[in-house]
């Protein structure tokens, strides 16, 4: 199927590596101009180089997504310099795993701010550009942890489950403006974030994945690319699990 995109400016947070990098590359491959957000401008150089190599267009932006003032300022800069963003992918995320009894306030607050509050800041900042165009796509990258919980990840799972409720609410609010909002919940994907897991844990997880492998970032970006296309225009408020069948 040939996917089409009536508006060409996209923004991806957490685009320096892993799933975010793959999403930025995939959207650029579709001919979109991709604004790549990461904490430092240097962080996105790999992504920018990869996109340039395949003939795509991308720009790097250094923004701390957990800082509401920084996101607001970035949205203004973006509007002035590039115009309205029509496709927003909230992918930036961190983990600070700990058991409940040992979890520090900072571990809780940081994970909630970077994973969940950031979605709110970016959506609020960019949505008026979409309402004016009467076209928009918002995709929030959540996690299977947010669907089924995960011992040691109360903060992360709370943030990711929060993103799903947030996504459903804005899907309802913005539907009349032809803006869709969906969530994608990756399972175990081979990235730097899961690289830290011990071999022992990986061995234990594998039997629970019917497709018998860990995912790759491209498995997620394929889903995101579709949800951002015109062809996905009847899909909103949904959460798509991309996990080899682990959660069903």
């Amino acid at each position, binding site marked *: 199927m040939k996917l089409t995109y009536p508006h060409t400016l996209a923004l991806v947070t957490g685009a320096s590596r892993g799933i975010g990098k793959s999403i930025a590359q995939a959207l650029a491959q579709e001919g979109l101009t991709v604004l790549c957000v990461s904490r430092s401008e240097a962080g996105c150089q790999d992504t920018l180089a990869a996109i340039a190599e395949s003939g795509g267009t991308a720009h790097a932006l250094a923004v701390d997504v957990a800082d509401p003032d920084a996101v607001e300022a970035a949205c203004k800069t973006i509007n002035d310099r590039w115009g309205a963003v029509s496709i927003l992918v909230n992918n930036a995320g961190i983990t600070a795993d700990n058991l409940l009894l040992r979890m520090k306030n900072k571990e809780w607050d940081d994970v909630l701010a970077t994973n969940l509050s950031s979605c709110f800041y970016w959506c609020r900042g960019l949505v*008026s550009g979409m*309402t004016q165009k009467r076209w928009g796509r918002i995709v929030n990258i959540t996690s299977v942890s947010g669907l089924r919980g995960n011992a040691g990840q109360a903060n992360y799972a709370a943030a990711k489950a929060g993103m799903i409720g947030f996504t459903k609410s804005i899907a309802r*609010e*913005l539907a*009349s*403006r032809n803006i869709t909002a969906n969530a994608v919940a990756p399972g175990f994907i081979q990235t730097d974030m899961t690289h830290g897991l011990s071999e022992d844990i990986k061995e234990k997880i594998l039997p629970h994945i019917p497709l018998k492998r860990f995912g790759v970032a491209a498995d997620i970006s394929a889903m995101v690319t579709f949800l951002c296309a015109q062809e996905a225009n009847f899909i909103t408020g949904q959460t798509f699990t991309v996990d080899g069948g682990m959660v069903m």
Partner: protein
Amino acid sequence: MSNQSIQERVIQIISNQLGRKMEDIKLESSFTGDLDADSLDLVELVMAFENEFSAEIGEDGIPEEDSEKLRTVQDVIHYVEKRMKDRSAKG
């Protein structure tokens, strides 16, 4: 822009935001009744008024308790004029 009246600027914004012809927008037109604006339109209209009149009413914009009272085109024009008067009285 400065030689355009407040009324013209208000009507221009409403026309852009709601996709209505300027001649269809009367002073007594109500946003939700006559002009078919929904709640999202109202929020966007207020933001557009704040942008347009930031020089006249200040950067703080239009507080929610004020914006809730703006039901017709005339309400907005009166409101902007009143805010300008209050401001010049203070300043």
